[in-house]
């Protein structure tokens, strides 16, 4: 079925178009982004249960962007009377004029930016989905999660609890200017099963997730993962600490995604080029990885939680090849950064929600697959680790340092898994060294879209990332 567009947004659209026209009398560019996204979260464990309707992307509100004298300004609000847009226009003018007065008083210099083009565009895209979150039978879901939670505890010798959580969101966004009327709706869902185990080593947890641009029907897949998660929690209880050093590693698709995201995802967000915060600007056309490395970024090439028709500035989704055969091709760009750099925007202008500013952000970031099987890859490792499960990562676009905290490593000696498990693992290094050492890729690839991505330490948005199994050399600690 199609995810229907919000009747509320359709109803206020005429009022918002009037608002754009009213502000157009004072400003030389005006746009408005309005959102009306609904969803739910169900969380079940043996000790606590929870249901609410606030997910990472549920919201209802609007933000106007205006330009005058080379300066872009925004006003975000969530009270709007479509019968009286004059009231909102007056409030936007009032508060922004107060800010302009303060900026004059403090003699603040303005970063002069050209006016955004306003090419005509009409789009209404209601994307295919399964079940809508608002139609989901939460009673059935609570029962299903309760069964999974009980099974997770039962099948782990040291398990003290099993948390099962699912959230599903029906996103509706509308972007309007004098000449553009773009409306889109889609559904994404994500779920996780986590088993908590306690032993002499303390409390550890294992987890597996599911995510897709589909409805709550994907949560059924969590049930297949319960036993595997319980086993990984038990493994962590007896895991040893790794001897720090450089190793041959094979990273799982989840860790490949983390590397893609942290290494050249953040590193080529081009609003960082504007601030001279990214080394990538100097490496376009140069080698940054081995011949095997080709990496895509965009809302278009893959269907996952961050796949949309247009971004929060009304730019259509793209498929950007950032790295081809080890050579850095280009970055991704929001509309204002594109104007400043003299390039085309790539559909990567995203806001945390209507209250937040647009930044250049990732969508789906993925390494292309190769020709090998996992078994062939393991057979080539003299001494190293198969790395699985990600905890977190951090970018360093200025110096291309990388930090990935990984759940666990399975020791490989003489081409065979020994059964020894180490945890946790801090993988650090210099990005071109890490990508330059990639020597084998598996045939399959997988994307992961649970959780969120921040810029610095804020501005959380949905992204997905992934790739195949990859063999490389890395420093582990």
């Amino acid at each position, binding site marked *: 079925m199609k995810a229907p567009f919000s009747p509320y947004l359709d109803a206020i659209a005429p009022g918002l178009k009037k608002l754009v026209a009213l502000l157009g009398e004072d400003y030389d560019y005006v746009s408005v982004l309005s959102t009306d996204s609904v969803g739910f979260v169900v969380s079940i464990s043996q000790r606590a249960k929870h249901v609410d309707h606030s997910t990472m992307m549920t919201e209802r509100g609007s933000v106007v962007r205006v330009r005058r004298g080379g300066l872009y*300004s925004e006003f*975000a609000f*969530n009270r709007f009377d479509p019968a009286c847009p004059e009231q909102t226009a007056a409030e936007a003018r009032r508060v922004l004029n107060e800010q302009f007065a303060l900026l004059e008083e403090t003699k603040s210099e303005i970063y002069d930016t050209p006016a955004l083009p306003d090419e005509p565009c009409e789009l209404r895209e209601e994307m295919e989905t399964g079940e809508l979150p608002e139609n989901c039978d939460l009673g059935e879901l609570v029962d299903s999660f309760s069964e999974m939670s009980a099974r997770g505890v039962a099948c782990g010798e040291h398990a003290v*609890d099993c948390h099962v959580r699912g959230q599903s969101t029906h996103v509706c966004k509308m972007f309007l200017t004098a000449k553009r009327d773009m409306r889109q709706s889609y559904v994404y869902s994500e779920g996780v099963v986590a088993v908590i185990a306690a032993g002499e080593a303390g*409390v550890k947890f294992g987890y597996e997730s599911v995510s897709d641009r589909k409805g709550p029907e994907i949560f059924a897949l969590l049930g297949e993962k319960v036993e595997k998660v319980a086993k990984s929690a038990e493994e962590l209880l007896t895991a040893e600490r790794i001897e*720090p050093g450089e190793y041959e590693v094979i990273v799982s698709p989840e860790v490949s995604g983390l590397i893609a995201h942290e290494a050249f995802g953040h590193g080529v967000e081009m609003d960082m080029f504007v601030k001279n*915060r990214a080394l990538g600007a100097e490496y376009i056309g140069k080698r940054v990885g081995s011949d095997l490395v080709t990496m895509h970024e965009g809302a278009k090439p893959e269907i996952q939680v961050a796949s949309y028709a247009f971004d929060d500035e009304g730019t259509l989704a793209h498929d950007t090849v950032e790295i081809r055969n080890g050579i850095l091709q280009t970055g991704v760009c929001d509309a204002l950064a594109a104007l400043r750099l003299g390039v085309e925007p790539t559909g990567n202008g995203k806001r945390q929600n209507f209250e937040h500013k647009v930044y250049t952000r990732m969508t789906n970031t993925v390494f292309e697959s190769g020709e090998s099987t996992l078994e062939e890859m393991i057979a080539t490792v003299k001494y190293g680790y198969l790395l699985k499960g990600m905890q977190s990562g951090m970018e360093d676009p200025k110096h291309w340092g990388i930090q990935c905290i990984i759940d666990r490593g399975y020791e490989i000696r003489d081409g065979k898994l020994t059964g020894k498990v180490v945890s*946790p693992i801090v993988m650090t290094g210099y990005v071109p060294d890490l990508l330059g050492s990639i020597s084998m890729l598996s045939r399959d690839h997988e994307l992961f879209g649970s959780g969120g991505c921040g810029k610095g330490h804020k501005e959380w948005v949905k992204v997905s990332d992934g790739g195949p199994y990859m063999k490389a050399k890395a420093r582990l600690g």
Partner: protein
Amino acid sequence: MENYILDLLRSSGADAWTVSDVRRRGWEFYFVRHALDQNRARDAEHITLTVYRQFSEGEQSFLGSASAEIAPSASPAEAEKLIAQLLDEAKLIRNPFYTLNEPRGEAVLTAQAPDLRAISGDFLRAMRSVEESADAFINSYEIFADCVERRFISSTGIDVTDVYPASMTEVVVNARRAGHEIELYRMYKSGSCDAAGLKANVEETLRFGRDKLRAQKTPALGKCDVVFSTDDALEIYSYFIDRMSTNMVFQRISDLEIGKRVCEDAGGDALTVRALRSLENSSHNGAYDEEGAPVRELTIIDKSVAKSYFGSRMFSQYLGLEDSFMPGNIAVDGGAASAAELRTGRYLEIVEFSDFQVDAMCGDIAGEIRLGYLHDGDTVTVVEGGSVSGTMRELAGSMRFSKEQRQYDNYLIPAVTRLQGVSITGAE
């Protein structure tokens, strides 16, 4: 918030209900160097409804709940539909019975609505006052000044409102020499603008930046004492604080028990952690927590012994606590030695990580080193790269911290913290 929402809740048949109504008005300014990239204003109200249903099965009593945010633009018909939906959903949630907070009659902190123009002006001038140089300068910064109005209403008779400022500044600095340029990132949070403190903090970061230009690769040190003197130390103290929450204790994620030590005694300083009702220029100076419980002074850990859990109403009641709350401000008392005394012998003082983390569940620590000072007698070597690892389960007992304290927004913690025998993976 429109009164019809309360009227609908009162007549809904819910066994209990609460409303959280938070309005945030914000001014924001984004700069590239000192040129204004964009200015923004926000005015958004977030109204969250929670309805409760009490029911029994056999001899077991339950209190289920369901929550949702309702847009301030919602019509009465939308509100009525949503409340009916929440009533159905609350019956699905089989949490053991507990009661909601009741009015406790404590005094209210009075607060004036903060002046966003004045606070923003203070930030703009403070950032302009930072002493920069050709080799160390501000790359970009973002200023956020908010006025928070937080009202909490419940069917049990609570109707309280807090008004307070909450601000944040994100600053990126660069240092440059002979074509080599580095950056350091900082995020400062506070109530309103502490101009002198912000200036001092940014200038300290500029000094770190100049030092990073001459950094060598961190050697493989094996085990080494590590000194923390920035807000990364918050992660260390949060390991203890988080595990004293009723949420983690009830869910068996924390094994801390009242009356027992929170770590082994291995010669470290005695740890005392207190919840504070207010802390000067904190962005968390509300008089009530998000469930309407009054915030008060409370000793959480006393001389390394767990004294009082804290947390949300449901988990606190499950542990038998009637008057608990979620604190906004936390103080960790100073230790026995001065900062200077802790900075002796061989140690690595790390002032910049990629992202230093302490896993509150298992105590594992991890972080890539972006800038550190390796002290060995009179020799100081500036280092970068490599990482730290270990577990607080082994490191906590010998942890030492300074008499002097330093405030990071709503946390007042020892200015210097020293962990003994941390594993250091070198970058060489």
